[in-house]
């Protein structure tokens, strides 16, 4: 009887070797494990085994059934999963169903990139209206009436007292008039200049203004902050310089130049062969501005800076015609 058990096991092991499909597997099951299979037949025979041998043979039979059943199940799982993986029903190379992907305007992207750099170092984001009073846009910012400084910014007028803001600087006036120092904010927004539209100029564009006012703010901090910005935005290796300039609302005033990232400072058409690109204007808030907003210039000092977004975006993305930014051709918009 024990020999028969061993024979059955060996036979099973020989047979299972050749099983590689569901069909052969089923044949194997019928032959060994079905109601009329070899294992059942052996249990049938077991009934007539003398009682003193029953214990040993019973154990052998149970072990055989467990082993064969386990091997059969393992093979069944393998064959079924293999069958699934190789199923020819699904063409996995078909294109995916992608949701439509929108885009932020390039000016928004550039603006938000700049804003986030300053937000991280504690600047608030404050906005103001596009129609401004002559006083907020010019007078309070130390542009005297009938002064050639006003020629620097060709203005769209609404009437004698109101105009389209020519820069975001009037938001400085609004913030300082509405709160006590310290003030630490950037002011993004749209500004207007009465300039003919061509590839290099448009009648409106966007600026980001910055302001930090407190009791002991110095030019050295202005430099530190803007150098931090330039490194974050243009990379750690950027070289920079500050050179004197003139804005009525700051004194001393400066322009910040960085090494031309197009030619790496060797000189090219874009940087007019100077190796430098002008990226922003800045300076220490003029005492007259503090006086007009009701701060005491003896007690309070501060710095301000401003940059044009279109210029920065155009340089960075090699766009040579500013009109592309406002034509809204979706083939252009989807590129960014």
């Amino acid at each position, binding site marked *: 009887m024990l020999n028969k058990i061993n024979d059955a096991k060996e036979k099973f092991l020989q047979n299972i070797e050749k099983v590689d499909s569901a069909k052969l597997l089923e044949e194997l099951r019928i032959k060994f494990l079905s109601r009329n299979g070899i294992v059942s037949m052996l249990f049938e025979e077991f009934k007539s085994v003398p009682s003193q041998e029953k214990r040993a043979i019973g154990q052998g039979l149970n072990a055989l059934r467990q082993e064969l059943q386990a091997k059969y199940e393992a093979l069944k799982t393998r064959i079924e999963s293999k069958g699934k993986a190789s199923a020819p029903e699904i063409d996995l190379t078909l294109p995916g169903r992608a949701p439509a992907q*929108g885009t932020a305007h390039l000016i928004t992207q550039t603006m938000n990139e700049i804003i986030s750099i300053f937000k991280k170092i504690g*600047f608030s984001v404050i906005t103001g209206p596009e129609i401004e009073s002559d006083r907020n846009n010019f007078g309070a910012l130390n542009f005297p009436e009938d002064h*050639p400084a006003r020629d620097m910014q060709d203005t769209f007028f609404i009437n004698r*007292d109101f105009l389209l803001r020519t820069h975001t600087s009037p938001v400085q006036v609004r913030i300082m008039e509405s709160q006590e120092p310290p003030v630490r904010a950037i002011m993004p927004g749209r500004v207007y200049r009465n300039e003919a539209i061509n590839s290099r100029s448009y*009648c409106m564009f966007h600026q980001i203004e910055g302001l930090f006012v407190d009791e002991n703010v110095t030019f050295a901090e202005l430099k530190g902050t803007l150098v931090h910005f330039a490194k974050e935005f243009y990379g750690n290796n950027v070289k920079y310089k500050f050179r004197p300039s003139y804005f009525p609302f700051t004194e001393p005033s400066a322009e910040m130049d960085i090494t031309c990232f197009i030619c790496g400072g060797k000189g090219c058409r874009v940087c007019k062969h100077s190796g430098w690109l002008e990226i922003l204007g800045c300076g220490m808030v003029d005492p007259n501005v503090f006086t007009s907003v009701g701060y005491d210039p003896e007690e309070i000092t501060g710095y301000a800076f401003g940059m044009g977004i279109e210029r920065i975006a155009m340089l960075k993305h090699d766009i040579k015609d500013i009109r592309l930014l406002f034509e809204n*051709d979706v083939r252009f918009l989807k590129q960014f």
Partner: protein
Amino acid sequence: MKIVLSWLNEFIDLSDISVETITNDLTMAGLEVESVTDYRKMFENFIAAEVVQKEKHPNADKLSVCKVNTGSEILQIVCGAPNVAAGQKVALACEGATVPDTDFVIKKTKLRGELSQGMICSEAELGLSNDHSGIMVLPEGTVAGKPLAEVIGYNDVVFEIGITPNRPDALSHIGVARDLSALYSRPLKKKEITVARSPEKIEDVAAVEIIDKDNCPRYSAVVVRNVTIGESPVWMKNRLKMAGMRPINNIVDITNYIMLELGQPLHAFDLDNLAGKKIIVDRATEGLKFTTLDSVERKLKSSVLMIKDGEKDVAIAGVMGGENSEVVPATKNILIESAYFNATSVRRSARYFGLSTEASYRFERGTNHEGTLYAALRAAELMAEYAGGEVLSGELDIVSPKLELKTTELRFSRIARILGYEIKSEWVLTILKNLGMNIKSADEEKALVEIPGFRPDIEREIDLIEEVARINGYNSIPSVDRVTSPLKSAVDEMELQNKIRNTLIGYGFNEIMNNSLQAEDVSRVFAEPVAVMNPLNAEMSVLRTSLIPGGLATVAHNLHNGEKNLRIFETGHIISKVGDQIKSFDNISEQIAACLTISGKVSEKTWSSEEREFDFHDLKGYLNSLFESTMDINVLRYSYHNEERGIWQYSGEIFAGDHLLCTFGQVKDSYLQKFDIKQVVFSAEIFVNCIKRNLDKVKKYSPVLKYPKIVRDMAFVFDSGVKYGDIADYIRKNSSPLLKSVSLFDRYENPKTLGDGKISLAFTLEFYDNERTLTEEEVEREFSGLINKITKNFNAVLRGN
């Protein structure tokens, strides 16, 4: 402002400093050098040469073959100019020379078979004038072989400097030299007046009277007699040309030359044309006509300051002289005007006449009231030398007692407070002295500084600090990366706009940006627009009252380019007028809006999707989701209009409480026609300020389903006029709190199966209770109750039963 190096060298010795260094140092001191023209380099390989022989070209009628002596060899040059002749001294471009303003390099070549070893140049080819009628012929005595730059007096460098409006002093050679003098700590040289004076006194031949002393605080005049009008010397003409001015005659050239040298505009009157030999400075007579030097007749107004003689107007003060007293070839006697006019007065005159001249440009920025007489005498001296005149003794010089020099206190501690680093006080004082300031007194803490007349921009301590900072160099200011300031939480007023933007981008919208200036007819439909007084053109005459026209313009632009399926949005300011006139900010409504525009297909035919056009419900769906993600939607109320309204064919409105939050709909054809759009467009405008966002409100957890929900479907056939919204509202109002949601799962119209004028709507209702498991019986009761009510109230028939 074009500054000539050799001219600068007359005021400060720069002979050992390279052009590159000067360029960089000027820029870093605030006088930004925009370009440098080095004529020495430009004329490298250009020399003076002598034509020794000229023969006709054997193969070309208009060409000659010349033998040219370069001083060291004889070259053969083929020349096309009609005026070339043997014996002439000419400008020769040798091999390797680059023709100015081009990339053309001269090479040995054959022209129609004849060797040509260079080019004989015209003035135009050299970039000296527009004359290309023939070659440039150099003076007789010119030595062959000499560098051309030297021969023609262009052995020089010109710096083009962008002068900011605060630096009128730098609109002159002496002003630029003064900055260099401070930068290099080198002395500024002054030119002394040494001209001999004729015994005759000026008082005997001329007189000056100032009536408007406020607008003319100083008037200096000098008379030069018996001048001979002719050409200026070559060196002077060259300098004027290099500085960008056209030589006219010796007298006019000298006035211009002194202006470029000292920054003081001068005017030369023909003394014999001044009636009564008299100058009167006074306001114009309203309405009189006056013809200026440019032969334009101009109408005067009484606020304009004029120069008059005993009878008539002779010049617009500070702007331009008149034809009636102009220097002409026959002029013998000159009165030189060197005045100090009020900057604002000149600016207003120049603007009134729309006439900006070299003189008005300088006067309106502020000239040097201390220097008028010196400038007149310098001009007189040159007229004596180069026009053979005699300078009468004495001068007419009327000075208002109000003209005083300003003094300002400078506290040394304040420099560090502003700049963030210390500068030694001795060095501060040296810089100021080198800039021409007069230190009246100084101690350890402060100095009293007298500001010279040529620096009208300096009035306050901060102005002096800037002078010190720029001369000491901004590079020497440290860059501090530490900030000490009280903690204060930062706010972000753009947050909501960004949230809306990012949400829409997530829905596949492309952000656009349009010009805020629009045509009036497309804007007026929405609100009363604010007009610009001085628009660029009629298409851009008002500020946008809505973002929708911009969206439509974008649709039109893209349709034109073949892009027909669009899902675009914009956020920005919309502006309208409140009341009749803009007197204060209350008369301006300026608010943030967001505009969604969709047109064309929402989906294309693909292997797994059917083609479908955008419709009203796509737009409504975007709006629903957008509001859900940005605000508390429980406050929203919708209303719908099937009829035409404003720009809409049909439309909807969304209110938040009482505030209109959004209007949306299909844009009607007649409005689309203005944009030449022939495709259906849906648009929505959201008034962002009305979005009440409870940023601080913390959302509390509400338990997810603990007990099973029971779902029931029901379908009815209605008369087709019925509105889904009405039935859904009815269901909500007429059921117990156990009903948690109603949704529409099918909508079906088919005359064959339902009959004419009928529609089938099928609803899914979900019931549950957070506290317990509902029984089938109670739901069934609720459900069948609803069915009965709907059937009765809406004349409906339950389907499927």
